[in-house]
């Protein structure tokens, strides 16, 4: 049992090191689907929609309503063509938030009465996460940050989003290069036996931590360049200037498609309320 667990642990760490896979998935998630129905919607409309679907389920305990919300976000997630890894993370996340509670409470002498409240809790959690997956992975980063800015979010946040999407591929590549160079120069311990495997695991973790030393120095240099470039363009003044903001947001436009999306969602929710009233 213990060996199996350790093996699983070291496999997990090894899996993480295949950064290429992660990078592909993340980039696919960020840039790979800007031709979907969801991505073409206006970010402001989507954010309003998200505010409803992401918040209201927390306050309602009606099973019909929750099921309807869940199905709605399920459909939108399908429409947004979200990357597989993100969906897997979602499933794991929902389980770790509520699924394990069910097992533990059964262990402590719970019974069928435990299941209902936990089912409702699970539905709530699942609905909110799927809604956020739809909005935040379905949308282009620039459109998303523009939408947030329109609602008066701090400029710092929309800057962070745009910057993050642009710098991430570079950072990942650099981190991978550093890790590879450490591996080339390093002498990993034998990992045939059990103790060897444990040692190998610790070695891997140590390499990852050491790799952050050069990465920190490089990123420090890079962030200085970034900020100086921003300063040359007068970033800190532009960030609080109303005229600049207006220019930036002039591309946003609400079309009939957006309103139709809202109306269909509303119809679906209204139907669910009707169903819950009748039955």
């Amino acid at each position, binding site marked *: 049992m213990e060996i199996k667990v350790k093996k*699983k*642990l070291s496999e997990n760490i090894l899996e993480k090191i295949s950064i290429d896979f*992660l990078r592909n*998935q993340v980039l696919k998630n960020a840039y790979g689907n800007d031709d979907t129905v969801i991505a073409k919607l206006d970010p402001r409309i989507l954010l309003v929609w998200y505010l409803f679907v992401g*918040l209201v389920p*927390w*306050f*309602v*305990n009606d099973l019909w309503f929750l099921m309807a919300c869940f199905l709605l976000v399920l459909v939108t997630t399908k429409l947004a063509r*979200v990357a597989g890894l*993100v969906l897997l993370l*979602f499933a*794991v996340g929902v389980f*770790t938030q509520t699924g*394990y*509670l069910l*097992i*533990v409470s059964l262990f*402590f*002498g*719970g*019974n069928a009465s435990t299941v209902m*409240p936990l089912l409702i*809790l699970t539905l709530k959690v699942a609905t909110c996460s799927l809604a*956020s*997956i739809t*909005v*935040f*992975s*379905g949308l282009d980063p620039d459109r998303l940050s523009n939408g947030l800015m329109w609602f008066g979010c701090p400029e*710092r*946040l929309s800057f*962070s*989003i745009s*910057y*993050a999407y642009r710098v*991430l591929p570079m*950072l990942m590549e650099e*981190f991978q290069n550093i890790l590879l160079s450490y591996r080339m120069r390093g002498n990993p311990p034998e990992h045939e036996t059990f103790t060897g495997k444990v040692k190998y695991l610790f070695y891997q973790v140590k390499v990852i*931590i050491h790799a*952050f030393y050069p*990465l*920190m*120095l490089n*990123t*420090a240099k890079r*962030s*200085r360049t970034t*900020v100086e470039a921003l300063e040359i363009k007068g970033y*800190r003044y532009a960030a609080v200037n109303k005229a600049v903001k207006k220019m930036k947001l002039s591309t946003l436009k609400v079309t009939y498609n957006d*309103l*139709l999306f809202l*109306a269909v969602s*509303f*119809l679906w929710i*209204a*139907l669910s*309320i*009707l169903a819950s*009233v009748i039955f």
Partner: protein
Amino acid sequence: MELAKKQTATQSQKLMVFVLTMALYGLATLFTELIPKFQVGVVEFSVEFFLFIPLTLSMLFDPLSAALGAATGELVFSEIMLGQFGGLGELEKFLTVTIGVYIAGRMVKNPKNYKMVGIAAITGTGLQLLMGTIVDIMKVQFAVEDFEAVAGLPESVFATEGFAFLNDLLFSGILFCLLPTLFLVPKLYGKIEPLLGMRPRDEKTGLGGINIKVIIAAVIGFAVAAGAELLASNGTPLIEWEASWAESKTALAIGMVAAAVIAVIALMVLKFRTGKEKAQY
């Protein structure tokens, strides 16, 4: 002149620290988010691997910028980019990370003092984990109706959350926060500051230790965090509101459906009309 010397960083240097911490911690949390969580039985070993990054940077640079950068980085890279954004609940994580990292950064006056660096690192981590645990327990207590009535639930929540806290603090706190910070702070000290055009922090340029103001701000921050998280989970106010229009529920529901149908049809018609007009030109 004295005042100018006292100030540790200019505005743009603060922005640099913010960007630096955001990029690094964001990258790191992205990895932790992507690793499938490792579980033994029912207790998950969710390792907060990389808190050492903002801890280290907050001890070397302006703590507030580093703390805000770390929290923003986590929010943007691992929540928004992966679509894991949990709405209002994310405010809790944002604030707890900020408070933990900021307090750790303020505690260190001289990064050469090993003992203080170690104490600060473990205090910051412990604070962040403890606040998260308290909020988690409260969250389940409020989200599940009749918390006490559900057989076996209270004990199970306290047991798992308590165990998770201890496990996180002793396992990942020491292994992944304390030791790397102790390794990185002296190594980076004096090397990374010139890259941002600053002088290394010492007794004179430090911001000074923890005072009452910092503690009060932290407590308020935690109250806001807990409040946001509870508001995100607590059902009571809106359920009562729901009951007030319960008498004519059916009529209201039918009205809503009718309104929605009319809206959909009207929009469809409008859309097709504009489509045709465009096609004519």
